[in-house]
């Protein structure tokens, strides 16, 4: 006797869903780190602009 119960929770679907989530996070992480790297570079550039010629007259 065969009982037909639809099983929608297939392994490939889970993996796809979790994989999408991981990819979304990864892209978010890369974007954030790049954003922070740029902010760091901008801040350092602003600081480096501020300089003195501290030497003999």
């Amino acid at each position: 006797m065969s009982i037909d119960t639809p099983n929608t929770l297939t392994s490939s679907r889970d993996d796809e869903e979790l994989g999408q989530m991981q990819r979304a996070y990864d892209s978010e992480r890369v974007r954030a780190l790049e954003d922070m790297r740029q902010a760091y570079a901008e801040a350092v550039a602003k600081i480096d602009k501020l300089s003195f010629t501290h030497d003999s007259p």
Partner: protein
Amino acid sequence: MLIAHSEDLFHPIVKTLLKKLFHWLFPAIAPLDFPSLEDLKSELRLRKKAITNGRRELPASDSTEPDEVEIQIRQRIASGRQKAERKHEQQQQIQQEKLETFQPSAVIADIKIQVGNAVADFKAIANRAVVDLHKVYEKTGLEQKALHDFRIKHRLTAPADYPESQLLHWGFIALLLVIEITISAGFFSEGLRASYSAAIPIAVAISVCNIGITIVASYFLMRQLFHRNWLRKIVWGGLYLAIIACVVLINLFFAHVRDAMSAPGFRINNPSGFVPVNDIFAAMMAGSLGLQSLKSYLFLGVTNFFCLLAIIDVFKMDDPYPGYGKRERKADQAYEEWIEAKDDVHTRLTASREKNAQAIEELNTALGQKMMLRRKNLGLMRSLEDKHRNTLDILGSYERELIAFYRKLNKESRSTQPPKYFDEEP
């Protein structure tokens, strides 16, 4: 029971208790509580009914519909199936609720917020650091400009020459004072014909007049001799030279005092002990040193030598040009503060960047844990689904076996032919 096909290792009562405990502890994963095949045969009294009906030639040979016993079997199995379905639905619902607490879109949205916060936190720190640094930069710039203007105004072409610290010079002056007091007390104790300690107050007074006045005058006026402005050079420089001349005269005066006190017959001629100051001034005004004792000359030489040492020491304390050393020191100090502030900002920025980058990486770990939990939940749901299918398969096989058992016994107990449907698959 569906799980009781293994050998009977436990007493039935113990088995029942264990079974109930398992169902109580793990209701979500406990298997369906359904009688075993043999129990069902007993429950339905299949053996008796099959034999009885067989002997009565029931069901009739020409019957085409299942008899009551087969209907009872199907109904019993159908009730078990319903019970299994209900239990399965409950279990799946529990797991589904757990799954719903972990929505990928919500997790990603949350992560986006946290990542955004980390970046915003870093940017805020970076902006604040740059603003703070600007303040130090402006202050340093003012000091640098003041130094530059000073150099132009006074036509200074070389950097100021001053020691790292004046502490050593002040220490040297303290040493000069101690040595001079010690030596002067020695000279005067002989003159007074008194103890060494009794001469110390006079020695202190001499040192204060000699080194004290020299230091104060040199510190505030000596450098005016090097000023570009001739008026200042003449007025303040002249005043300084006059003060130093006075100090030398004071030293000469004390040498005379010492000379007079150590002269033979001083006590006899001056029983009160007072020194003939008028005579001393008269001798000094005559332009002659007029000292009688070699030791008094030696005392004069020592005091003037200490005066010279004090002048040299104060001179070495700072750049010769008045105010130049102080100005450059302030500019240097401001510049050092600027360098420190700049390094500090670099350190703060790097630390903040690393901290926030680490926070972002930690989110990855947290996400991995959540994903693992989700996989576990999904795995459990699949396992429940498989178990449920297995249960339904077993119930189906029970149904077939019970009907086959009934038909076989019925067939063996009757003398007439059984109905044709007995040969069909139940």
